[in-house]
């Protein structure tokens, strides 16, 4: 019997893996991949909560679709920044992107 907690466990494991990827990677595009994994984990949680706890409304699915829209915009702008970074520095290493550091 698969309960809500199984889906929450899947979501939390995926979120933690994505968090590690977003924090520990050197390449800016790999950081974006980690963020995408985290957003997917959140979407699993939203859909599962909606399905198990409030099945007569589809509010969780609506929120998940908004998250997908914002994720698409975020990856487009993030890649534009990564490409611009590459143009200036000839790499996408986030360790070296410290122009704003005082």
């Amino acid at each position, binding site marked *: 019997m698969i309960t809500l907690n199984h889906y929450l*466990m899947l979501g939390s*494991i995926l979120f933690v893996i994505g968090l590690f990827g977003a924090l520990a990677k050197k390449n800016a595009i790999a950081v974006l991949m980690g963020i995408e994994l985290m957003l997917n984990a959140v979407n699993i949680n939203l859909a599962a909560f909606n399905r198990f706890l409030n099945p007569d409304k589809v509010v969780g699915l609506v929120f998940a679709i908004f998250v997908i829209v914002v*994720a698409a915009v975020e*990856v487009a702008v993030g890649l534009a920044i990564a490409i611009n970074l590459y143009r200036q520095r000839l790499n996408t290493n986030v360790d070296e992107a410290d122009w704003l550091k005082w």
Partner: protein
Amino acid sequence: MGSALTLVAFWVLFALIVASALAVVFLRNIVHSALYLVLSFIGVAGIYILLEAEFLAAVQVLVYVGAVSVLLIFGVMLTRRGNIRQSNLFNGFAPAAGVVSLALGVLIILALARTPAGPPFSTWPADTVGALAEAFLGPFVVPFEIAAILLLVGIIGAILIAREVKENK
């Protein structure tokens, strides 16, 4: 759908998602990471089908598998430099990031273990697409329009940022 079949499908998808997410983070070649990311997105779409949210699964396949991963691979190809086999390394914060992520994971799993199991799978409108359409054009019409504006602003912003700057002569 039979209960045993759901059980098997859930654990197969669980293993697929977690294994490919780990591959995304731990492989050293960023092209392989991007391909495993696609596999992970497809597994999440399968989870949506198990949750009987078929429209969300279709959106997941269209937007994530179709658009976001292609955009990421496009970015990889545009910014490639040096040895591709060493293109996805860890930065200096990897040990600290590992401790933080592991601690957060243990915390969430402990909290989940103490949570009583929620209500069982109840009935769900067979026509989620219709319900979603009514929600989008009813109570959520303002966020829906703002999302459209956000997409437009995002596209213009991406073009402006990625545009090649002509040097003044």
